[in-house]
């Protein structure tokens, strides 16, 4: 089922009662998720991700704006009538009930013509347990299971009543790195198998990029960009998105645009018309810009000769990590203390002296005008 958020805003009264100001947790939020898709909601801590989920689930009432499930306006529907499944950040499994009882809990609440017999319930519990592969753990208590297993129980509990929408609030944040990788693949598989429209909150960009059909990057309650993960990565609309996505982080330089070229310090580093992500409609007025270069966007040049387009940095060290090699260097125009360039190990240059020269890959360079 399609989900549409329309100008959704949520303000909280300030906890500090002396201050009259309000906390705007979600600010004029509008997006649309197609039926059966997996959307990643991505942003730094405190940017309002959980609040968006709470608004969709109905646990919080929006200050203004509308929410649609398909064609139904559910803005004023209480959570119990929205038929959503929610997996909480810490799972919120009932600790005194066994896994079986936990998963059965939502089914026992069904009334009227949806009421199920004991056998039907058991059937559905087994079905959900099989989906998340915990059939053998049904008689355990949540405290007797690992984080990953608990998470699967939480997903089974959310799925068992066949919700119209599945909401996941940082479900992988309690897992160790390996389990995380494994469970996120499983999540994707479950989502594909069930075809339930899913919103997945995370502050881990890699997680979102790897399994989501589309991602929404947010900051301070506002949407910064919405699109397919690769599109957002390849053409970030602003410096925040560029910095937020990608690991290791993108390198940012202060630079200028002059006569159709991008300059960092005195170096002419790239021609503006080559940059794929640059919005050509804007024209290219001269001015100060941030030049953001992905670590994989550098090509080392051993001998620049008198090439007019080159970026020169002061070399610090080289870190060889198997397939790739990081070149750590610095530049006075860089926003951070170090610049990290990642190149294939076989292209490793011999660096003489204290200078390293780069050519930039046009598709990995993004420029944003400073305000």
């Amino acid at each position, binding site marked *: 089922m399609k989900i549409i958020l329309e100008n959704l805003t949520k303000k909280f009264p300030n906890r500090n009662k002396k201050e009259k100001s309000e906390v705007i947790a979600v600010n004029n939020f509008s997006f649309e998720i197609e039926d059966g898709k997996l959307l990643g909601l991505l942003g730094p801590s405190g940017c309002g991700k959980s609040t968006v989920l709470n608004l969709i689930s109905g*646990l919080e009432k929006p200050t203004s704006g509308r929410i649609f499930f398909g064609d139904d306006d559910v803005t004023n529907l209480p959570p*119990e009538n929205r038929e959503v499944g929610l997996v909480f950040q*810490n799972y*919120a499994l*009932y600790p005194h009930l066994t896994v079986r009882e936990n998963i059965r*809990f939502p089914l*026992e609440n*069904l009334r009227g013509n949806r009421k199920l017999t004991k056998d039907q319930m058991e059937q559905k519990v087994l079905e959900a347990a099989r989906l998340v592969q915990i059939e053998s753990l049904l008689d355990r208590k949540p405290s007797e299971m690992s984080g990953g297993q608990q998470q699967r129980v939480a997903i089974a509990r959310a799925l068992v009543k066949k919700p119209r929408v599945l909401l996941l609030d940082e479900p992988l944040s309690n897992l160790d790195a390996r389990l995380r990788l494994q469970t996120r693949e499983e999540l994707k598989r479950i989502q594909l198998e069930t075809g339930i429209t899913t919103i997945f909150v995370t502050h881990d960009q890699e997680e979102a990029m790897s399994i989501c059909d589309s991602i929404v990057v947010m900051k301070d309650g506002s949407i910064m960009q919405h699109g397919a993960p690769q599109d957002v990565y390849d053409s970030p609309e602003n410096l925040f998105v560029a910095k937020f996505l990608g690991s290791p982080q993108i390198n940012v330089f202060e630079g200028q645009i002059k006569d159709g070229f991008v300059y960092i310090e005195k170096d002419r580093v790239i021609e503006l018309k080559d940059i794929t992500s640059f919005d050509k409609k804007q024209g290219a007025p001269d001015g100060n810009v941030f030049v953001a270069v992905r670590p994989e966007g550098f090509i080392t040049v051993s001998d620049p000769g008198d090439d007019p387009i080159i970026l020169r940095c002061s070399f610090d060290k080289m870190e060889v990590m198997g397939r790739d090699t990081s070149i750590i260097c610095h530049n006075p125009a860089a926003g951070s203390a170090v610049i990290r360039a990642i190149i294939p190990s076989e292209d490793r240059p011999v660096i003489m002296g204290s200078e390293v020269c780069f050519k930039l890959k046009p598709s990995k360079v993004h420029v944003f005008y400073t305000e």
Partner: protein
Amino acid sequence: MNDKKQTLLALICLLPAILFLGVFMVYPMIDVFTYSLEEGYNFASQSYFGIGKYNYSYVLHDPYFIRALKNTFFIVLITVPLSTIIALIISLALSSVPKLKELFQTIYFLPYVTNTLAVGLVFMILFRKTAYTDGMINVLINAFGGESIDFIDGPYAAKMFVMCLYTIWVVLPFKILILTSALASVDPIYYKAAQIDATPRWRVFTRITLPMISPMVFYLVITGFIGAFKAYSDEVALFGTDLNAAGMNTIVGYIYDMLYGNSGGYPSYASAAAIILFAIVLTITVINLLVSRKTVFYR
């Protein structure tokens, strides 16, 4: 070596407690037990005829003791469940009104810090018939066209009614205090999860709230049983010191009377009664513990 040192250290740390418990708990208990077996004990000469179970048989055939036993059981069985349920209802109501919660909590806690005898005095004003007035409750009963009832010196049922009401009133504040904090300690995320799953309110209470606060409820039931079995001062506050005459004596009251009352001076009988009380409380507590294994959820 290290282990031995640790054991020694543990013993030294425990010593004060062991000494204290030994002198004030274990020794008196053994003493009471021996007293209860000494037949024909004479207080003045500190001598006795022999050893046997005559004291127990005397106490168990004493109509005053039977009366006290019945009264005690009646009070226990009425007040413990009722006060726990009422406290639970009030606590639930309190935790659903976050705004005035603290004010109400204070009000409900007032009886706890008020002296039992002062509360007794208020109950007197409410229930006692005097030459001048029949008491406020009777005034109310009269207003609704009923006959005056003498709650303090009248029929047994009326007296028992006031007694239970009083006991519940006195134990309520503590239970409310414990239960409100138990309710507050339940993570609200479970209620949110239940709400998302469209759980009816009654089911939220029976399937989530109650199991989560069950250790505290259990604690209140156990201490409630023990406290009610030891009831005495509440009876004195309402009916005066001659409880046998009022027909409202309790086991502890009987023990006291056997020691120091008008008909007192029989430490052997008192000891036997005390041991019987001990056996009853022990049995009830063990039953409670066995039941709790199945019903109480500990994290």
